[in-house]
């Protein structure tokens, strides 16, 4: 295998490489230390090649997904909200981040940073408390679910004004490099869905693809994308300033606290599957 890792958690899974090109077009991108070519035939069928060699590929959820080994250990996760009528589907584009993808997913699952990193948007001092929430690994799918999460937010989305509200969250980790969140939407009783799918460039670089499946009758696509970019732009300098770009899974290099249940579960879940890609070797 020519790729930069031999970790089956990456090679035997479906990895996002961004949206498939338009019919009869092609482009190159980076995957696990290699340059791959994405092409779409005149009939609309997308493919991915490493040199002359075709890789297993499938279009789903607006992106192309590639299995480097050709032997996927499991099918791609379900994303039922993608097909739900009434939702706006907006691809917010790929943003490069110079850190292990595991750090990006952990950040995505984290509420405690809202008042500090996303001040006046997703949180505001003194509303800093992280109330207890539930985290479990679903036995059937192996996914991590964090439920009963709530946080006071000044401006929870592009559709919200700045008057503030308590926002309900559910989080879901489908793959080491893929997660979703569901949060109170502008529409009563309905939850917006936001997916983050990380394209692994190498152990310390990813391209983060963000997809909205949301309810919003007023904002333009540009406004929805701009809001996500504002939020991501606040996270990016933090993410790129971890003293260790790779995430430690063992030992005492980093100290969690009570509200880090999602993070602690995610790290244990990664450890149990023998994750090595993007992981800092134990000291």
């Amino acid at each position, binding site marked *: 295998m020519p790729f930069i890792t031999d970790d089956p958690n990456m090679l035997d899974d479906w990895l996002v490489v961004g949206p498939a090109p338009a019919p009869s077009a092609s482009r190159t991108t980076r995957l696990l230390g290699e340059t791959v070519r994405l092409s779409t035939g005149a009939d609309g069928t997308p493919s991915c090649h490493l040199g002359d060699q075709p890789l297993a590929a499938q279009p789903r959820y607006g992106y192309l997904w590639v299995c480097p080994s050709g032997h996927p250990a499991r099918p791609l996760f379900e994303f039922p909200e993608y097909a739900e009528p009434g939702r706006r589907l907006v691809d917010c584009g790929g943003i490069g981040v110079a850190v292990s993808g595991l750090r990006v997913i952990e950040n995505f699952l984290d509420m405690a940073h809202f*008042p500090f*990193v996303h001040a006046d948007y997703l949180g505001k001092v003194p509303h*800093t408390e992280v109330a207890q929430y539930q985290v479990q690994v679903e036995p059937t799918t192996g996914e991590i679910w964090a439920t009963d999460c709530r946080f006071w937010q000044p401006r929870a989305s592009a559709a919200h004004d700045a008057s503030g509200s308590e926002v309900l969250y559910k989080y879901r980790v489908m793959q080491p490099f893929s997660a979703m969140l569901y949060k109170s939407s502008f529409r009563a009783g309905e939850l917006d869905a936001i997916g983050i799918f990380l394209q692994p460039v190498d152990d310390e670089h990813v391209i983060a693809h963000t997809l909205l499946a949301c309810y919003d009758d007023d904002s333009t696509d540009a406004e929805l994308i701009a809001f996500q970019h504002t939020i991501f732009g606040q996270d990016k300098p*933090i993410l790129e300033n*971890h003293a260790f770009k790779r995430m430690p899974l063992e030992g005492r290099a980093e*100290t969690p606290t009570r509200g880090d249940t999602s993070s602690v579960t995610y790290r244990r879940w990664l450890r149990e599957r023998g994750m090595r890609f993007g992981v800092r070797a134990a000291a």
Partner: protein
Amino acid sequence: MNTPENTVRWHPVARSADLRPGANIVAGFAEGQELALWRAADGTAQAWENRCPHRSVRFTLGQVIDNRLACAYHGWQYEAGSGQCASIPAHPAMQAPRNVCAKTFGTAEAAGMLWVRLSPDALPVPDGLGNAVPAGWHFCRTLTVRVPAAMVRETMARHGLSADEASPAWRGPLDGVETAALVLDAQPLLSFIYLWTSAAPGSAEMKKLHAAARQLRTDIEARPQG
């Protein structure tokens, strides 16, 4: 002489004047160790490992709040001096656990510089630090060069400077201007040179030293690597 005082080196990591009480955080280096340098509101200088114990985000992104350093990621606050975590905003009612502690290093302020040693032991500050720059001298500039500190010292020797016996400084005239040079071994391929001089600010002598400093840097960078 292998006394601890000699083997544990004091590194000149910043000018004292560059750290304002209760204000900025300065990124520093010593022998490859990344440092967060700051001054508590009470004036005491702090040199910490540049890494929050919680999620390893660099402290230099954070802010100084009175006598505490607050991490930019989750707002955890750490006490000046001990490095002990004093506040975890996600759990306002919970007392921060004792085992959450920033790694701190010993500091000394002498000769207009902040000095750091990378040992946790409490050692006396050697008299030599205070003699590194004669009283009344002025700061000229810092040179940053991407070479090992040993190569800096070799080049300084060829420019007529020599190691001072009573202090860590290199002394001598640089193009005729009395100079004290302090060399920081920042990283394996990164060194800083702090130049102090008897020349007055704005004087023709100071201008001459600035020109000599540029020449010194050019000569250091021109040396064959490795």
